[in-house]
């Protein structure tokens, strides 16, 4: 199957995890993604859409047979299983390009059955046995269109009620043809029909797979997006911010100096002030602001009231910080990068 391999969200050897539980969990979590099972040189995949198994391949096997083979491979302790997560939009695309592997859609599984019927093989005999509730016993029950699940019905939504093979949980999205009322009987028979006939069909299908070359399809397949113009602008904006030229720095210093001076002179009883701003354009813009403030002599009452100079100093620092924040509206935290020294005479 054509699937985008990225970093798996889970990796484990078969003997370290319970495969049916994993399937159950993926179903319960309405997982979007796929699992890859590697046994020796053979690889198998099951694609999940919202927890439902929608497509499968294993070596040269497809669909339900592939699921069966995967289950079998999971019985070998040295098989490796990896779980990959995808976005729902990617799944839609992947089901589209992997049509030959779809186990879900009415079409294939039933077609296979039809083929078998047509070829007049074993189907006849089986029909009834269906009744058995415990499929588990044999390794064969496999072929059921049922996705996974042997023992655990879990993977299927309401397995009990429908023995349905294909059984969709609540496939709102899928136009599931599930409609078949009788299928109950079918599923079973299939179990026997051993693969013999299948392989050929699969090979043919395999050869039909074509690799998408169109860029937009590839982007969809791998869940990639072009960068928006706005994002590029933002990135470049931060870059420009980091490389202020010396003349820019001088302009900022001058502007900041005038603004601070004007504000400080607005404080009553301030006779005059000198403000010096020194910016350092290292990796982050930092700065030092030195101020000398001339204050009218304090009255007798103010002196008694404690430390008026300290209060004034705080007020001037406050005003200065407000001016810095106003000057760097987009980045007010920059105020932390400034050292403010005030000397009052």
């Amino acid at each position, binding site marked *: 199957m054509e699937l985008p391999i990225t970093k798996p969200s889970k990796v484990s050897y078969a003997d370290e995890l319970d495969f049916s539980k994993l399937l159950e969990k993926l179903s319960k979590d309405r997982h979007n993604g796929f699992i890859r099972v590697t046994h020796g040189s053979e690889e198998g995949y099951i694609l999940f859409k919202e927890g439902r198994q929608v497509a499968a391949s294993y070596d040269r096997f497809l669909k339900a047979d592939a699921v069966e083979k995967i289950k079998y491979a999971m019985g070998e302790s040295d098989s490796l299983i990896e779980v990959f997560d995808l976005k729902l939009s990617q799944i839609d695309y992947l089901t589209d390009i992997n049509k030959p592997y779809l186990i879900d859609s009415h079409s294939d599984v039933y077609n296979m059955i039809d083929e078998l019927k047509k070829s007049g093989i074993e189907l006849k005999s089986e029909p009834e046995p269906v009744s058995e509730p415990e499929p588990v016993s044999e390794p064969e029950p496999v072929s059921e269109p049922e996705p996974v699940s042997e023992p655990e019905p879990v993977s299927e939504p309401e397995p009990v009620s429908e023995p349905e093979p294909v059984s969709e949980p609540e496939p709102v999205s899928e136009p599931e043809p599930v409609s078949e009322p009788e299928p109950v009987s079918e599923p079973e028979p299939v179990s026997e029909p051993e693969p013999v006939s299948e392989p050929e069909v699969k090979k043919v299908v395999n050869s039909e797979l074509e690799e998408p070359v169109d860029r937009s399809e590839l*982007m969809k397949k791998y869940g990639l997006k072009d*960068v928006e113009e706005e994002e590029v602008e933002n990135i470049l904006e*931060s*870059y420009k911010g980091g490389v202020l030229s010396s003349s820019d720095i001088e302009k900022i210093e001058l502007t900041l100096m005038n603004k601070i001076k004007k504000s400080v002179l607005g404080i009553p009883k301030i006779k005059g002030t000198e403000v010096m701003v020194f910016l350092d354009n*290292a990796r982050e813009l930092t700065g030092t602001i030195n101020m000398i403030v001339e204050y009218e002599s304090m009255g007798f009452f103010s002196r008694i009231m404690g430390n008026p100079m300290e209060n004034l100093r705080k007020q001037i620092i406050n005003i200065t910080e407000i001016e810095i924040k106003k000057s760097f509206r987009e980045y007010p935290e920059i105020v932390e990068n400034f050292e403010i020294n005030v000397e009052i005479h």
Partner: protein
Amino acid sequence: MTRVISVASGKGGVGKTTIAANLGVALATYGEETVVLDADIAMANLELILGMEGKSVTLHDVLSGNALIDDAIYEGPSGVKVVPAGISLEGLRKVKLEKLEEVLERLIEDTDILLIDAPAGLEKDALAAIAAADEMILITTPEVPSISDALKTKIVANKLGVNIIGVVINRESHDKTFLTDNEVETILEVPVISVIPEDPEVSRAAAFGEPIVVKNPKSPTSNAIMKLGADLIGEEYQPIEPDKKGVISKLIEGLLGRR
């Protein structure tokens, strides 16, 4: 005229520094006056790959205004000139990126090719390194996250007016699960100019502090990088075939006194 080429990737850990270092050595072998500048001032390791760690004056010192660029240029393997970034993080905050331009002006004076090993990501330092160059070689591995970041880098570089020479696919491993060369080329819309195979010899060479093109010139990686270097300057490159003699035949020859 000096060519200033940045080697950038977007994602870290794709082998950018290894390729920049070896490409620099390759170009120097062809007789080009080549300087490799490690602009990754936060995660410098060009000097480790070239076995030149511990230099007293580095780009750090130059960008902090504590040294002159001339004192930070060292001669490396095959005559390639190297400006190490300096591994210490001390003084990183003092670094003035705008000084980079000044540094480059001096570096290109007697140089044919200046390779800038750009930091990963698209932070200010990475952008400064990309913007400082006229051309760019994009490095990626054939995996989705790496391609995704390379795509961003390419778009930003285009916006900065940098000419992208092409993409180098590193650590190619004919695994059908990775993106094919064609897919990479289609997605990035940039020609694939070199495909470097996954090669354990690379880590081995790095462990010895030697560039692989010197330590193991017959390796597929060395051949790919030498070819890339030759293509950049319009030279012909004849790949060096690996020894075909098996260990046993070499042993027998040794025992018989033949070499």
